[in-house]
């Protein structure tokens, strides 16, 4: 894992000091809320439905045990004993007191964490693959690139007041576990003629105008990635729309002027940028890379897993993924207990996972955009012990990528922007499909719920997506089918008129019935939908 040097540490420390000063000015009345708001947002502090909310950055979803433990401590000490892992691989606290916020940032800085640029019209936290560094088929570990970009984007002087927020993702495998093409810029590391570089995709995103990002450059080498991204951002900063915040994301610019024209402008700017010496020397990426070198895996480990306990065997089959090192496995920890809140974890659960990482996973934890956690380096021999501890803490649900592994935004229970509640609906769906055999029968089925058009719950990218809307003061839910955030990215289509909360659960059941009746061998829900189209589903739902 990356560790701060004195430069990195001094920047986050100075940020704490700066925010303490800003909060004091606010509490003393020297700053009005209008003046303070953009400053607090730059530190991820929102005024939400019930209280202030603090969003903490988890760069590329990687945490050490000590960082995880600190997140739990903060939840217990300053919040109401829990935190919420988001679809951006970040963590949100829902009940923060303004006067405590600087102390919380200081606690975060003590474990090399921060909340810098977790809101605002700037470059946000860089996201990545939760299996980075441990999947056998990756071209290179994407995290050194992501860390390079984290540093480059922190307090970028030219790109802090962009037309709108800007999200960048880096992956390095054919399988896309990070919804790369639904980012403002997506980088996919590739190898060409023995050299590692990035394919660049631009103009993806969800929100009210969802778009899958087109390829804008086939290859950018690591020695030029910064100057190339500066070119992409400069064109966007200068020409992205500022007259309407709903049309201000880069996807609208790329769409309105066309991919070819955007590419042309970027190439022209890049030709200029590459003369300015903006790129760190290759030694800098090498320095960062050294932090992500493969840990010292033990050798001679057994591959056998004792499957005598059927509940454990079920969990292994569902939650454990292949690791590149012999004798090791990747453990996915579900934060989707059937009656729970997707992505929420109590201070005690966070502490437990920190302890497990320390004891069994070489000190590392990952956060996924699907709001689950990962222990990336687990010996197969330790799986049973881990499962027992997770089970005691209510964290042993075996539903990865199944219909109850629901992505849900906080919705109207917490969010000031929401039009409808997402979480109660997620709970109703989970209870309707609670039967483990039924879930397994349905197979991979990604269900994603957003409580408003901003799409934090990725509803456009769900095999089944749900969008909550406000219909004359009553919660109403639209159903979408056929989306995907993976390597086969696509956008879901709305089935038709919306439903009540119970009505949409019934409709989903009808949709799954059609799938079971129509599927051919080996077809996932998404495959069947793509083959037979919307019509049969629509007929079943609306009769």
């Amino acid at each position, binding site marked *: 894992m990356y560790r701060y040097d004195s430069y990195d540490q001094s920047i986050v420390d100075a940020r704490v000091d700066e925010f303490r000063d800003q909060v004091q000015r606010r*509490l003393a*009345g020297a700053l009005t*809320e209008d003046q303070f708001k953009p400053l607090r947002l730059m530190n991820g502090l929102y*005024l939400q*439905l*019930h*209280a*202030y909310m603090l969003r903490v950055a988890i760069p590329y979803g990687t945490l050490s045990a000590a960082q995880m433990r600190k997140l739990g401590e903060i939840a217990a000490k300053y919040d*109401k004993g829990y935190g919420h892992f988001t679809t951006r691989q970040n963590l949100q606290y*829902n*009940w*923060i*007191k*303004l*006067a405590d916020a600087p102390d919380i940032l200081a606690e975060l800085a003590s474990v090399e964490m921060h909340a810098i640029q977790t809101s605002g019209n700037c470059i946000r936290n860089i996201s990545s693959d939760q299996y980075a560094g441990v999947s056998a088929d990756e071209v290179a570990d994407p995290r050194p690139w992501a860390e390079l970009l984290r540093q480059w984007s922190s307090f970028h002087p030219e790109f802090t007041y962009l037309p709108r927020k800007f999200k960048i993702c880096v992956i390095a495998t054919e399988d896309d576990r990070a919804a790369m093409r639904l980012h403002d810029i997506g980088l996919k590391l590739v190898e060409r003629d023995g050299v590692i570089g990035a394919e660049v995709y631009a103009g993806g995103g969800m929100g009210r105008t969802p778009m899958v990002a087109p390829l804008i450059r086939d290859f950018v080498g690591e020695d030029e990635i910064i100057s190339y991204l500066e070119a992409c951002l400069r064109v966007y900063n200068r020409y992205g729309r500022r007259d309407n915040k709903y049309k201000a994301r880069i996807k609208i610019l790329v769409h309105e002027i066309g991919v070819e024209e955007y590419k042309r402008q970027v190439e022209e700017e890049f030709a200029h940028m590459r003369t300015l010496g903006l790129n760190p020397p290759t030694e800098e990426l090498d320095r960062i890379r050294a932090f992500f070198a493969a840990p010292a895996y033990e050798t001679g480990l057994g591959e056998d897993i004792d499957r005598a306990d059927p509940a454990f065997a079920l969990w292994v089959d569902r939650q454990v993924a292949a690791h590149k090192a012999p004798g090791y496995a990747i453990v996915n920890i579900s934060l989707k207990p059937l009656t729970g*809140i997707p992505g929420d974890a109590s201070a005690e659960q966070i502490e437990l996972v920190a302890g497990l990482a320390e004891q069994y996973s070489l000190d590392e934890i990952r956060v996924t955009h699907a709001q689950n956690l990962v222990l990336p380096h687990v010996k197969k021999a330790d799986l049973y012990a881990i499962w027992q501890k997770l089970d005691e803490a209510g964290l042993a649900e075996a539903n990865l990528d199944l219909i109850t592994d629901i992505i849900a935004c906080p919705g*109207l*229970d*917490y969010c*000031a922007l*929401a039009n409808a*509640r997402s*979480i*109660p609906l997620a*709970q109703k769906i989970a209870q309707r499909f609670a039967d483990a055999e039924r879930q397994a029968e349905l197979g991979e089925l990604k269900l994603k719920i957003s409580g408003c058009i901003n799409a934090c719950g990725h509803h456009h990218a769900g095999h089944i997506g749900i969008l909550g809307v406000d219909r004359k*003061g*009553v*919660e109403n839910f639209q159903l979408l089918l056929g989306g995907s955030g993976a390597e086969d990215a696509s956008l879901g289509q709305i089935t038709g008129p919306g439903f009540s909360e119970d009505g949409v659960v019934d409709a989903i059941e009808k949709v799954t019935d059609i799938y079971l009746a129509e599927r051919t061998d080996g077809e996932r829900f998404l495959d069947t939908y793509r083959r037979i189209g919307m019509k049969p589903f629509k007929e079943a739902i609306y009769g």
Partner: protein
Amino acid sequence: MKILTGNDLVSGDVIWWAGEGWSRQVGDSADVGEHGDDLARAEEAALRVVGAYVIDATATDEGVRPAHIKDRIRALGPTVRPDLTLKPNDADAGNWVI
């Protein structure tokens, strides 16, 4: 009736204008008539509230009921965490927001 709500500047707690000061209980809300915006400005300037705004509500037998579900959820707390609402011992409290 028109009532005034916002968040406590320091704690962030949801608060309701109760006539002489602020309350955590929506039931204490006073009708602010046409004075809501002036009150909001004065109270924000006095650093007692942030994000204050006027909403429609009705006085019912069970107390003051904000017109919009969003404000009813603000008044109660998150319906998915009854333990953190203002009525932690009432399992059905969430029904009030619908």
